[in-house]
């Protein structure tokens, strides 16, 4: 995969919901998924409730740190952070922390549509040329790639499930409307997640 040198412009624009479903279809070992706020999170919800999914309702930008915390506490479990471009741009330093700590059971997926879609489609920094995969590599995440197309995304997820190094996958996504909305009951969401992780019985 290290031969891949796709830039953001070369990655195919794909359907966010379809990509989310493709991720979830790969999960057979109770892998954890942390959904950042916005349409990324809502599509995770719509892709089917799993007790190993955690849904944020605020704290924009914290999907990667929360996922990192879960990954540190449970090194035997693969953890995915699903985050939007606007969100990850708020907490770029976390990418360096992930790299420095070499959190090998963490995979970050960035759904990059270049806009703050939920607030009216205003353009983000990635929509103006910032390349989140290049930023991640610069931060020290060696396994950082743009998904060329749906098949490449599937191959990258297969890689994520077996690798022992932190990974970041950039996905160019369209501006389709989300297919649902999360529940807004934080203690319930947290409790279900902790039971899904086996922390509470």
């Amino acid at each position, binding site marked *: 995969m290290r031969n891949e040198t796709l830039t953001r412009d070369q990655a195919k624009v794909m359907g966010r919901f379809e990509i989310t479903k493709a991720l979830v279809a790969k999960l057979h070992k109770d892998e954890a998924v942390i959904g950042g706020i916005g349409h990324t999170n809502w599509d995770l919800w719509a892709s089917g409730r799993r007790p190993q999914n955690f849904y944020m309702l605020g704290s924009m930008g*914290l999907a990667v*740190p*929360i996922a*990192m*915390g879960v990954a*540190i506490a449970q090194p035997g479990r693969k953890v995915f952070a699903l985050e939007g471009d606007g969100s990850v741009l708020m907490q770029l330093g976390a990418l360096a922390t992930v790299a420095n700590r070499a959190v090998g059971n963490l995979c970050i997926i960035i759904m990059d549509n270049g806009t703050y879609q939920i607030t009216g489609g205003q353009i983000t920094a990635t929509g103006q040329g910032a390349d989140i995969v290049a930023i991640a590599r610069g931060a020290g995440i060696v396994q950082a790639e743009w998904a060329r197309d749906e098949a490449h995304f599937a191959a990258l997820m297969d890689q994520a499930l077996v690798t022992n190094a932190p990974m970041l996958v950039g996905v160019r996504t369209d501006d389709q409307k989300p297919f649902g909305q999360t529940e807004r009951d934080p203690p319930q969401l947290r409790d279900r997640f902790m039971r899904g*992780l086996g*922390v509470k019985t």
Partner: protein
Amino acid sequence: MSVWWEIIRDTLKASEVKLVTYVPDNVLNPLLKAIHGDDYFNAFVCTREEEAVGIVAGAWMGGMRGVVMMQTSGFATLPNVLASLAVPYQIPVLMVVSERGTLGEFNIGQAMVARTMRPALDAMGIEHHTLTRLDEVAFIVERTVRQAVTTQQPACLILSPLLTGGKAP
């Protein structure tokens, strides 16, 4: 009697607080060194206090207790993530803040920002205690961790210059 940072380190350890995420500070330095010197802890620096809170929140949900360490100005960056993550989700994020801005502060910016800390904590209903006396440190730390965990609420321990000596210009 031990010094304050050894008491905090030992009490955190006895309370099974294993993960320490922090943004460094001069006053915290001996505590951070003591923690890094003990293999029990998983301690590392973060780029922002919000990030440090997110990691500790995630670790709690994954079954590991943690604490976020920072100085007063760092706390001032936190109300959004405390009010939208730790408080509503009932996640016992433990915080240790070294208090700048009072009792001999030389930087007006620090003095101003320090005045926002307790009102912000009170507005969010977050339990907080100010550590001023060496003989009270172990009791307050141990009881604060216990209450945070059992009530599933965040809590904040403020290290006063009365305890630490603060930072001299």
